């Protein structure tokens, strides 16, 4: 059953007990993401040090298991990553979700890759892809320190 692939134990675990879900007040970059269709929200907070390295990362938000798990796993993996690495990982993840069968980046350890690949189940659920990618797009915005919200 494909549902089991979508809702793997690791997803349910991160979905129910998301890591790094807290308001960090020790950050210097942040961005908010929002899926207007379903109301899911995520706000990513970063502390980027003088070497362009993420020394701390956290997020706030609410959403479905997929989006929470994705933000949780992402924040775990991004800790201590340099800006170029962050970019590489985000691209690699988005490509994998869109089309590639596997992650290509060499930055992650095998167990980290396995963790991330647990999100690949959404490929068969096109309407849920956004749930998995929202945190990642928001991280990209945060690195640019541009808030993705637009005001009227």
């Amino acid at each position, binding site marked *: 059953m494909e549902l089991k692939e979508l809702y793997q134990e690791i997803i349910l675990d991160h979905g129910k007990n998301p890591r790094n879900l807290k308001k960090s007040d020790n950050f210097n970059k942040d961005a908010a993401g929002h899926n207007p269709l379903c109301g899911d929200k995520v706000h990513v907070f970063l502390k980027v040090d003088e070497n362009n390295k993420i020394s701390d990362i956290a997020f706030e938000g609410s959403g*479905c298991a997929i989006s929470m798990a994705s933000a949780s796993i992402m924040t775990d993996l991004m800790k201590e990553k340099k800006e170029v690495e962050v970019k590489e990982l985000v691209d690699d993840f988005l490509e994998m979700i869109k089309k590639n069968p596997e992650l290509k980046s060499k930055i992650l350890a095998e167990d980290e890759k396995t963790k991330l690949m647990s999100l690949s189940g959404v490929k068969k659920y096109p309407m849920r892809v956004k749930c998995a990618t929202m945190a990642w797009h928001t991280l990209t915005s945060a690195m640019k320190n541009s808030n993705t919200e637009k005001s009227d």
Partner: protein
Amino acid sequence: MNIDNIKKQFPIFDNKVQNNDLVYLDSANSSQKPKVVVDRIYDFYTKEFSNVGRSVHYLAVAATNLYENTRVMVQKYINASDPNEIVFTKGATEAINLVANTFGQKFLQEGDEILLTELEHHSNYVPWHYLRRSKGIKIKFAEFNSDGEVTLESIEKNITPKTKMIAITHLSNVTGAILPIKEITKLAHSKNIPILVDGCQGAPHLKLDMQDIDCDFYAISCHKMYGPTGLGVLYAKKKWLDALPPYQGGGGMIREVKKEGITFGDLPNKYEAGTMATAQVIAFGESIKFLNKIGIENIEAHESQLTQYGEEVLRKNNSVKLIGSPKNKGSVLSFTLDGIHAHDIATILDEDGVAIRAGHHCCQILHDKLGLSATARASLGVYNTKDDIDKLNESLNKCKKIFDR
């Protein structure tokens, strides 16, 4: 009324969806279409097609007659006093935009107030919001109570001498509350305030009588009423259609056009600029016939039974929390499921062929107040059965199983 027979009139249920029988519980979003409606579109395009009102050849005359006959059928169905009180639009959203825009242009000034409710769909808020920006009007929201209802008192409390329009839903697309629109209209009129009813969810499920309700405007979404997409109806009292300026400008709605100025046509043309959705209007006539054949009273009875049954079943399921418990409730069952997000529910249910909606259902203000980012919603149509409710409940239990691993 034999409900099996009715389901048979909807071809969509003849086919499996992903190897499952379709359990369609998303009618508040859009209803399925009976065969007569789809056939009418087919026949019109393949045997009778022509544009309406513009040419004098045979096909054009016939199409114009069919088009105008539908206007009369709609008039009769909602018991309006004049066919010219029926304006065809591209949807309920456009109908409300038409009223907000033209009423705003002519009758609203800075500081004037529009009274909505916290139950409103975005389509009955955003058009008024535009007037906040362009005209400096204020928008007030009558609150809903813990049962998810908006009472007459809640409306009354929010009326001030500056209230210039009350715009409220007939039937909430989230809590299912049926608002006392006749009483609210009476109250509004006693203070000389016109009232717009967003009838998107009312029209498919409730007996409508414009002269009895006495509201000034009533917006209908035809695709939720067993009709085609891309069509809506605005009912408006003739005095308003006469008084308000035209909305969109174009062919068909003018009287005389000179370089220096333009005069506008009479009703019903004034508000129907450009080529209209001819085929859709004509097919919507079949939706009306379909409803009339079953009888709206029978539909009300059937759906009310089913809604009650749904409430019972879901109440018994301890993991489910229903949103709202209005005394007077329409065919909508919104709920949350312990620890499982609505999106996840919808995906898991879909695997069993159970189609529901998850999200804020275009009612963010309501969801904000409830502190929920999303709810799941099962909504009913004339083709639904108790079996559908049972299948919904089974699938909900499956969600629990998957998440409780």
